[in-house]
């Protein structure tokens, strides 16, 4: 509406033009705050409900529980199907941790080759790698399942971790390639003159400088693996091997509301690591997202 009329005029007109701008700014903040409250409502609701006694859960608009029902959490800690939450948490951590190590290692190796080394068919292979970002997971799902079944790996964590060591998540390869391309070539040339081969210059020069991209990869891998439901659903079926996400599944079919409180207490426990990661690394996360391939 009222921008920039004041670009060259006197201070008086400038200050008169500033008022509507200030008004606009306040409106923007009010709008953003309102949007924020609406958006955060489901999270507040989750937290509140996890502390509500069973009779208050349904048909109550109040966010604040009448009385705090901490027993929801102790029930949740007992776990599902006689498997304690600690066990489920450990399983989730093991899978997510394995995925992080696998992705960071394998994706950075492949990315270095694509970004910095010359080899035959580099162009077509790179194009293929990019194309697999768009490949729907389901196109390879069933044969992958058959392969892991033949290897006797169904109902183990291998199908969830092993693929990450083979750089199957092309998105991260691409992310690291983009980052490595931004590093000055002189560094490697200097290293080469000092007698470094490609391996030493990768480990000693490039990898340390790629740290921001590696951290982004690690955080996203952790959160996505933690949230993943589909793969865990098809590969794991023994309750003691379940992850937190999968344990929550047993609440999906249950229609009784008696388990509502404990169910949401467990949901909070399952979300907690993501929230902590988010609070600790939000800078990396937001910037990692912003830089995910749209830089010119």
């Amino acid at each position, binding site marked *: 509406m009222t921008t920039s009329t004041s670009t060259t005029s006197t201070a008086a007109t400038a200050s008169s033009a500033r008022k509507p701008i200030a008004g606009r700014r306040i409106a*923007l*903040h009010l709008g*953003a705050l309102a*949007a*924020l409250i609406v958006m*955060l409502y*489901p*999270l507040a*609701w*989750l937290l509140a409900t996890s502390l509500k006694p069973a009779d208050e859960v349904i048909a109550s*608009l109040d966010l604040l529980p009448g009385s705090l029902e901490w027993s929801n959490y102790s029930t949740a800690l007992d776990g599902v199907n006689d498997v304690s939450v600690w066990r489920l948490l450990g399983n989730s951590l093991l899978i997510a941790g394995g995925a992080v190590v696998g992705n960071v290692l*394998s994706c950075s*190796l*492949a990315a270095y*080759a694509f970004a910095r*080394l*010359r*080899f035959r068919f580099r162009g077509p292979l790179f194009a*293929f*790698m990019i194309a697999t970002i*768009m490949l*729907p997971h*389901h*196109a390879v799902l*069933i*044969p992958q399942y*058959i*392969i892991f*079944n033949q290897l006797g790996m169904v109902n183990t964590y291998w199908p969830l971790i092993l*693929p990450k*060591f*083979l*750089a*199957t998540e092309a998105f991260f390869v691409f992310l690291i390639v983009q980052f490595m391309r931004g590093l000055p070539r002189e560094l490697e040339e200097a290293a080469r003159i000092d007698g470094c081969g*490609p*391996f030493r210059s*990768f480990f000693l020069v490039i990898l340390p400088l790629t740290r921001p991209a590696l951290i982004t990869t690690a955080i996203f891998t952790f*959160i996505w693996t933690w*949230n993943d*439901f*589909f793969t865990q659903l*098809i590969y794991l079926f023994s309750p003691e091997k379940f992850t937190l996400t999968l344990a*929550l599944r047993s*609440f*999906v*079919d249950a*229609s009784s509301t008696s388990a509502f409180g404990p*169910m*949401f207490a467990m*949901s909070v426990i399952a*979300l907690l690591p*993501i*929230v902590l990661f*988010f609070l600790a690394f939000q800078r990396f*996360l*937001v910037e990692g*997202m*912003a830089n*995910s391939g*749209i830089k010119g």
Partner: protein
Amino acid sequence: MTTTTDTPVTTPAAKTVPVKRPGGRRREGAAWVFLSPWVLGAAVLTLLPMAVSLYLSFTDYDLFNPPHWVGLRNYTQMFTEDPRYWRSVGATLTYVVIAVPLQLGLALVVALGLKSMRRGRGFYRSAFYAPSLLGASMSIALVWRALFNDGGTVDNLLGTGGWVNRPGWALFAVALLTVWQFGAPMVIFLAGLQQIPTELYEAASVDGASRWRQFLSITVPMLSPVIFFNLVLQTIQAFQVFTPAFAVSGGKGGPADSTLFYTLYLYDRGFVASHMGYASAMAWVLLIVIGAVTAVLFRTSRTWVFYASEGDR
């Protein structure tokens, strides 16, 4: 290469040119060492499975008995005899058409708002982004089911009754969960907006262009590669939505198959009913459809996506 200005000893450098070749070959070998995990993964976990799933799509296969060749029967059954298949197609397409434009539109509006903010931008950016990370989880999908259930918050506020148990409405509950996660495309939009040179806006306003005109003539063209990137990414992801539909419908795609998304039905056919051949055929149709949609998007992008580097530099 390195400059050789002061040394007259450049002739040995010229002689090293033939010697460079074995070095180059060694580097080529090194490249393949670096690539080996990826090559193995691409071959064994991508290319081979694609070929196998194509083969299986022409068979009857239950995971226990050897595959039995049936030709095109899975496909003909899918297209002509399976009303549930078409309901899953309908649900998925409706969802994609509703959720993706709403999500991207909201992301763009909020990004524009945040861009003109001086203070608090970083805070809002992070806060709006949080649902994109949390929302993909089973926890939030369960929250959604409760909020949109009979007697849930939405019922209480709007008096519309629960959404998740009404066939005409359940899909919208899932779509809203996706829209709620507009933070990821918003962050990308915001990054794109910040790269548009401010001189363009200054020049336009000197010429007397209105804000709306500036938006249409500067923001949209300059942002079009980013809009395109988000559109392709979110569309591909929307076709594969699974977790919220599973949670909202108790894993069955109800009520009345209204949230029987394509991937949910694929899971049901393959892993619940053990019709791996049929599920493979479904997977291949999905692959072709996503490929076709992406191709169409790329083709139309020629008319509306503007790359500054092509024109200027």
